[in-house]
């Protein structure tokens, strides 16, 4: 059976520095997959390569049988891929509701846009309250919600979320994950999430792929990873998912 997303032998380099080396992975329809690994493992490069923002030097990427490699980011977005980038990257000078509208240009069902915006406001009531405020004035957690809402407004089939927990209070992170899971169940989304903490991933539930030094070094149930990390933390006093920088070289 054809998988939702297929990454075959993909390499990425920045100048002479390799960021990803021959990465192969697959996502099935409706699956929730976490990408984990230390800093510099190539997590963001992988997302960049899939979304078309970063050029690959080798390999190919397919979604629903369409070749993504070599396509412009906007063309990939039009195939049903959406992205919540690291650091949120919301449009600070636009209002909240304008941010939600930026990605609706690719939709054929223009009539449904207004209803969908209201749905986002139901899921994130604080955004509804501040719909006419400039997005730059939102708090970090609110911006994260806006970035997720904005990605959803493109009506994606596959959504990638880069470190949703970065810089947010644990309580807010819980809330963000609750909403993500709920939305996934409602819409039948496939989710690819970068998450440093295996414990967090295990609590949300799903498969986990471990990257290190630009290669896949582990693939399995998030709960199993969390257990291993807890053990090694107990024995060595450090989490395996976040080893020291020297170990990553």
């Amino acid at each position, binding site marked *: 059976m054809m998988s939702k997303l297929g990454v075959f032998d993909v390499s990425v380099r920045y100048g002479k520095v390799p960021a990803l080396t021959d990465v192969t992975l697959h996502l099935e329809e409706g699956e929730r997959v976490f990408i984990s690994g230390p800093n510099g493992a190539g997590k963001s490069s992988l997302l960049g390569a899939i*979304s*078309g*923002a970063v050029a690959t030097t080798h390999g190919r990427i397919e979604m629903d049988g369409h070749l993504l490699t070599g396509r*412009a*980011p*906007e063309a990939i*977005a*039009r195939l049903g891929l*959406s*992205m919540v*980038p690291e650091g949120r*990257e919301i*449009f*600070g*000078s*636009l209002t909240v509701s*304008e941010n939600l*509208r*930026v*990605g609706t*240009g*690719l939709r054929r069902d223009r009539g449904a846009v207004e209803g969908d915006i209201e749905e986002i406001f139901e899921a994130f009531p604080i955004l509804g309250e501040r719909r006419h405020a400039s997005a*730059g004035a939102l708090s970090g957690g609110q911006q994260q919600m806006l970035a997720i809402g*904005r*990605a959803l407004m*493109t009506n994606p089939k596959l959504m990638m979320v880069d470190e949703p927990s970065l810089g947010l209070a644990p309580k807010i992170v819980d809330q963000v994950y609750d909403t993500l899971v709920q939305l996934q169940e409602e819409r039948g989304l496939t989710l690819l999430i970068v998450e440093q903490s295996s414990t967090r991933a295990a609590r949300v539930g799903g498969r986990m792929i471990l990257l290190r030094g630009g290669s896949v070094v582990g693939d399995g149930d998030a709960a199993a990873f969390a257990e291993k990390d807890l053990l090694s933390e107990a024995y060595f006093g450090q989490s395996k998912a976040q080893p020291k920088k020297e170990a990553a070289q």
Partner: protein
Amino acid sequence: MTSLAQLFFDAASLGGIYAMAALGIALIFGVMNLVNFAHGEYIAFCVFALIVPSTEAVAVMFLGKAPAFLLIPVLLGLGAGAAVASEYVVFRHMRKATPVAMMISSFALGFVIQNALLAVYGGRPKAISLWPDLNTPVGVLGAQVPLLQLIVVLTTLLVVCALALLLKKTRLGLEMRAAAENFTMARLLGVRANVVITGAFALSGALAAAVALIMATQTGVADVRMGGQIMLVAFIATVIGGLGSLPGAVAAGFLIGGASVLLQAFLPLEVRPFRDAFLYTLVIACLLLRPQGLFAASSAKPRI
């Protein structure tokens, strides 16, 4: 003795021209970080499109003969076309180049256009007469103001409002604003880079054509060098306004127009020929005081 009202209209109409030219430059800078030195030559190109190609001193009207309702849209279309064509031929191939490389190539492109005009029309300034009736004075607030000045002020306001509406209310406007802030993110959301950039160039070129129409009517001269002069002032306005900020460009355009008229009126007679030198010195002083521009956009901060 020039009255205050007279000064005001002089300043507002000159500032209006500068503001529109600056808007054309700021639009493109905002979307693709291109400092487009060819912008002035779009203006010159549109002025010369009014007359029959020849190197004679007296100009024979060509497009300029058409009635206004036909002439205005055709010329705006021509300006937009020239700008879009230059993007297609030159800048599209430089999407990954540095802003400095793009700036230099736009300088080269401007030089090519200017010399092409020079080759076709000759170097002597030509007298042209486009809508001469508009220069008849009318009395406003006790001042004798050429009708054209009123029209310029009104047109500027109209153009600025129309542009603001377009940016605020249309799909293309929303995409352009998003792209101006973060092009990569906009593209990840399905915004087509080529559509936004082509749109920005078309708007910019149409603005250049509007400036050309006003300048041709007001000065009654077609000069190959006119593009370079207006471009320099417009650039300075964009920088003072905060590169990429559209309201800033408009405000700075009016500011420079005002400063220029005031200097002309109040400088001692013997240094008046040096007016532009004073103006540019003021500009450098302005830049030193606020390098990010007087009306810097929040998104235009350097990323460090």
